[in-house]
């Protein structure tokens, strides 16, 4: 008899094959292609990568666990500032370390994890009190917490306050950033397809029933929140070391909205949908920039909102709904395995 997750029964190293292949391709592109790309176009690719991490990580909270969080930019800023503060301080104390770029990249990985953990910790602090609330109330509270984090940073003078934090060393390379994109998607994909992820889905579907089936819903929600915050922190750190300048204003609620739009547009509960939407929205923002220069009106937000209205009218579940891209491939391997989720 064929088992339901039969194509999923590969384990250990064998199951990692495609992911490792993706990493190899990224590093090949890093060494052979990245330098050839036009710098403007290159920056769009980099921002797209950062947005992918943000959108995919927010999807764990908003899409898979059904907890509408609006403070993702707050966690991003925590990660960004922790890492930027660490590297700028180090650069002034041990400038000779920074001469060795390979050593520094290795060290930067450690800093990224640290930034993620810092953001995750803030995630616990924010999540424990606010996740008792549901729906609109949770959205308002997380929005508030996001702003609190921003104002808090605004008032710390050692990290620049309103002036911002300049001269951050440029440590986010193409290879490193996209490796994290792959790591993020990998971790979250595996997580939502495991027992932990089933808890998230249960909470989203019916909290009372989930609790009655033995799911510790508070813990599951906080867990999802922390995972989301961790990767948001990493994205913030990568962002800081690419732009090389941080300003609290960058992380206001507009930034959170942008990420939410990506998740909603791609489909709540679809990782590949988030990836597509992140790339699409990053690209369209740049495309609209020329239009803005021409007319001197910021069309971006108008088009964003129009797009969302149109989408809600035609595809209320987002572009992909809860499906993944792979579900659309006829005779794809996922067809046989059938996920836990509905494909309306």
């Amino acid at each position, binding site marked *: 008899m064929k088992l*339901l997750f039969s194509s999923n029964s590969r384990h250990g190293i064998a199951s*990692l094959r495609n992911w490792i292949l993706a990493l190899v391709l990224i590093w090949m592109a890093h060494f052979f292609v990245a330098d050839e790309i036009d710098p403007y176009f290159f920056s769009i690719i980099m921002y797209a990568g950062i947005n992918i991490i943000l959108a995919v990580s927010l999807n764990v909270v908003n899409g898979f666990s059904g907890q509408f969080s609006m403070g993702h930019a707050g966690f991003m800023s925590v990660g960004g500032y922790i890492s930027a503060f660490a590297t700028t301080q180090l650069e002034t104390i041990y400038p000779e370390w920074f001469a060795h770029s390979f050593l520094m990249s290795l060290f930067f990985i450690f800093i990224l994890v640290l930034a993620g953990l810092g953001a995750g910790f803030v995630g616990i602090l924010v999540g424990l009190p606010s996740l008792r609330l549901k729906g609109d109330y949770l959205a308002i509270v997380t929005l508030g917490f996001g702003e609190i984090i921003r104002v808090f940073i605004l008032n710390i003078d050692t990290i620049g306050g309103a002036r911002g934090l300049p001269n951050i060393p440029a440590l986010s390379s193409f290879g490193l950033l996209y490796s994290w994109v792959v790591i993020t998607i990998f971790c979250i994909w595996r*997580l939502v397809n*495991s027992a932990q992820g089933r808890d998230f889905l249960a909470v989203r*579907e019916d909290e009372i029933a989930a609790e009655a*089936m033995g799911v510790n819903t508070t813990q599951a929600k906080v867990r999802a929140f922390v995972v989301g915050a961790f990767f948001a922190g990493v994205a913030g750190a990568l962002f800081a070391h690419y732009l090389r300048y941080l300003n609290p204003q960058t992380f206001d609620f507009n930034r959170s909205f942008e990420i939410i739009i990506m998740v909603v547009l791609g489909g709540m509960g679809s990782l590949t949908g988030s990836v597509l939407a992140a790339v699409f929205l990053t690209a369209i923002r740049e495309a609209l920039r020329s239009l803005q220069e021409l007319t001197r009106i910021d069309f971006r937000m108008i088009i964003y909102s129009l797009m969302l209205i149109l989408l809600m009218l035609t595809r209320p579940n987002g572009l992909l709904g809860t499906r993944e891209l792979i579900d659309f491939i006829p005779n794809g391997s996922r067809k046989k395995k059938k996920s836990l989720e509905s494909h309306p």
Partner: protein
Amino acid sequence: MTTLHNETDSLEALEVKNLTIQFGGLKAVSDLNLQVSKGMIFGLIGPNGAGKTTAFNMLTGVYRPNSGKIQAFGKNLVGCRPFQITQFGVARTFQNIRLFKNLTVLGNMMIAMDHHPEQKHFWVLPSLLRTRPMVENEIQQEKNCLELLKIFKLDTRKSEIAKNLPYGDQRRLEIARAMATGAKLLLLDEPAAGMNANETKLLMHSIRLIRDEYQMTILLIEHDMKLVMGICEKIAVLDYGVKIAEGTSSEIQNNPRVIEAYLGKVPTDE
């Protein structure tokens, strides 16, 4: 059965003492006493608004009683959260079906079985790396789920989305899901509501089957008297939050207070 002499086996499955809950000035349930022995099918009946579901909600931790004691398999349930109570071996179904609507039948079962007391728990790293024990455990868990689904003849519908199932199947899936938590005491809140006579008959058969084959204890609320009188070995009747009668089906049927609660008092001339 030799296991009857075990220490834990001598305990009642469920013991409720002086359970009371008040909403404002209204005593929804007052001084309820129940004793459900292991392996029994126990019925809780009463007119609408008698406090049956409120009693269930206290037993499963949704409401916290104002006073009274609840013990299941020797463990105190008062003050525990619903998920803890489930882990003590008490699981429930809902009056208005509460399945994970957008997940498959098997998905519903897997979630419940994740919290089976004997289920191995894997922390984040094995899940990320899909280690061999984790994957094997997943496959085994799925087999166990299918076995349970087979009792309710739902194994052929494992990949269907729960909300697309016919009503009777949804009710049965809810019972199967409650069993998947590893519970030994099932609280069924109107399991036959909305079922036709045939489906009810099938359900009665299934309830007896799970009691006999899986040593379940069952406490059920039901309005369908055919089901209650047909399978319950003991019945308690609630009216306005007070237990007015307890006994076998024939005792209940002839109890004047029960008849009064359901049909009203015969007016007497003063």
